[in-house]
């Protein structure tokens, strides 16, 4: 031994043959699948390209985005209201919030959509007035007020409100109780504390699952075809029922759903950064840092 301190030791790295084999296998299977689709004589690629940018399809895609954004907005407002109700000291408000979440989470969304679509059968007219008296300010046929789009938005919003209420509640609970105490000690009211101190901190916990909800909502709008809302899926399946190119139009619809979910998930990282303000020590604000760091082999 010439070098007693082992400064020239040769290290043989551990080989990971299965990493290579499994990767190669998956690439092969994936490649074969894509090739089978592209080369299949049973898929008419011209039809796909013909309808991809068809005006009716684009309009339907826009309607899908509008339905998503409107239902998500109403759903989120409902969620905050019901989350706060559930956390309130009032037992009646609490019970109502529990019932609401239980009911709308516990029944299939499809069922709820059909229900709102058929509401006109149970209540032929809609009235606004004082219950159990003859005072009526407003009365109208249900079918005129509750168009299929309105019914769809109501169904999606109420359902979303129930799911998101639990997300918002978890976010509020994640904020340290000391924050509320400090706010109280400074003379802040409970509403002010919720708005300025608790919710901004809860957002950090709320946003990632809400991103999930947003994407889930975008896809759930396709269920509205059962109440004949001409959103993307309804439109493409209507076209395919005429030209019998079912698979081609599924590809068209799938393409636009992918585009929309991809584009609509971009704001999430912006929001995460904004509400993450103050939660990272200086210099480590880049959220990709942790993801990009290589796991040492």
């Amino acid at each position, binding site marked *: 031994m010439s070098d007693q301190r082992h400064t020239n030791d040769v290290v043989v790295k551990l080989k990971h043959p299965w990493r290579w084999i499994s990767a190669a296998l998956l690439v092969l299977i994936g490649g074969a699948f894509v090739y089978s689709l592209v080369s299949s004589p049973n898929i008419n690629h011209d039809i796909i390209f013909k309808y991809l940018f068809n005006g009716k399809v684009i309009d339907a895609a826009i309607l899908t985005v509008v339905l998503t954004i409107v239902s998500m907005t109403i759903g989120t407002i409902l969620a905050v209201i019901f989350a706060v109700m559930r956390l309130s000291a009032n037992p009646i408000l609490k019970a109502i919030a529990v019932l609401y979440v239980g009911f709308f989470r516990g029944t299939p969304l499809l069922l709820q959509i059909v229900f709102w679509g058929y509401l006109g059968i149970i209540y032929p007219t809609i009235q606004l007035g004082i219950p159990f008296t003859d005072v009526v300010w407003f009365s109208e046929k249900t079918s005129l007020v509750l168009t299929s789009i309105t019914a769809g938005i109501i169904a999606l919003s109420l359902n979303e409100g129930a799911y998101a209420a639990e997300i918002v509640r978890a976010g509020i609970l994640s904020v340290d109780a000391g*924050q509320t*105490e400090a*706010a109280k000690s400074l*003379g802040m009211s*409970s509403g002010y504390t919720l708005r300025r101190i608790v919710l901004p901190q809860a957002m950090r916990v709320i946003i990632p699952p809400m991103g999930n909800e947003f994407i889930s909502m975008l896809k759930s709008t396709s269920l509205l075809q059962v109440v004949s809302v001409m959103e993307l899926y309804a439109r493409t399946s209507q076209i395919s029922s005429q030209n019998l190119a079912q698979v081609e139009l599924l590809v068209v619809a799938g393409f636009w759903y992918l585009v929309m979910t991809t584009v609509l998930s971009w704001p999430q990282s912006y929001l995460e950064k904004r509400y993450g*303000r*103050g*939660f*990272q*020590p200086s210099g480590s604000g880049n959220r990709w840092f942790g993801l990009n760091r290589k796991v040492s082999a």
Partner: protein
Amino acid sequence: MTNMIEAIGVRKHFGSNQVLKGIDLTVSRGEVLCLLGPSGSGKSTFLRCINHLEIIDGGRLYVDGSLMGFEEHGGKLHEMKLSAIAKQRADIGMVFQRFNLFPHLTALENIIEAPVGVRGVSKSEAVARAKDLLEQVGLSDKADHFPAQLSGGQQQRVAIARALAMEPKLMLFDEPTSALDPELVGDVLDVMRKLAESGMTMIVVTHEIGFAREVADRVVFMDGGVVVEQGSPAQVIDNPQNERTKAFINSVL
């Protein structure tokens, strides 16, 4: 002139656990009072009762001549509206063991939040005052730092500045240095010492016997939910009469 605080037979229990068993205590204006006692003696609970973070079950607690959290008329005590309680609290500053700064706001934003949002002070005025306060606590250069970027001692000094921004008539300190690394305690105590010299009425729950001896006008020793002994630091710390006080002072010195 009335006393700043008058506690008469203040009682508080959590479930079957009687935490305060009738506290009688007066604090006059400008007085610095240190509350000593073993953990579980009720000193923090008493402090939290003063600004109604805990609601007392019996007795009466007056702050600056008015009953805390209740109104008396028709021979009965009526619970106050939450907005009225918030108003009472706004005049009482509190500093917590774990700082409780708002982590999503910078040091400066922490300080101006309540003056602007609760008192309706203009933002420019609040900012000017906040910068002034940051200078007083020796943190002028940290205005734009978030709490997570500050050391514990710096956070606690921002928390003191935040409480002072409401121009309170009384400051409550709940073990303000207990969560700090030993080398950071001095800076916080310096700020509190200056505040005491400026004439602020202060009630300090602490284990810092040295601070109590040097700064306190009066030391109160609590144990088992009652005031066991009180007097000047020289009496209570250096020459305690009660056995429990003696045992406690010996254990912390």
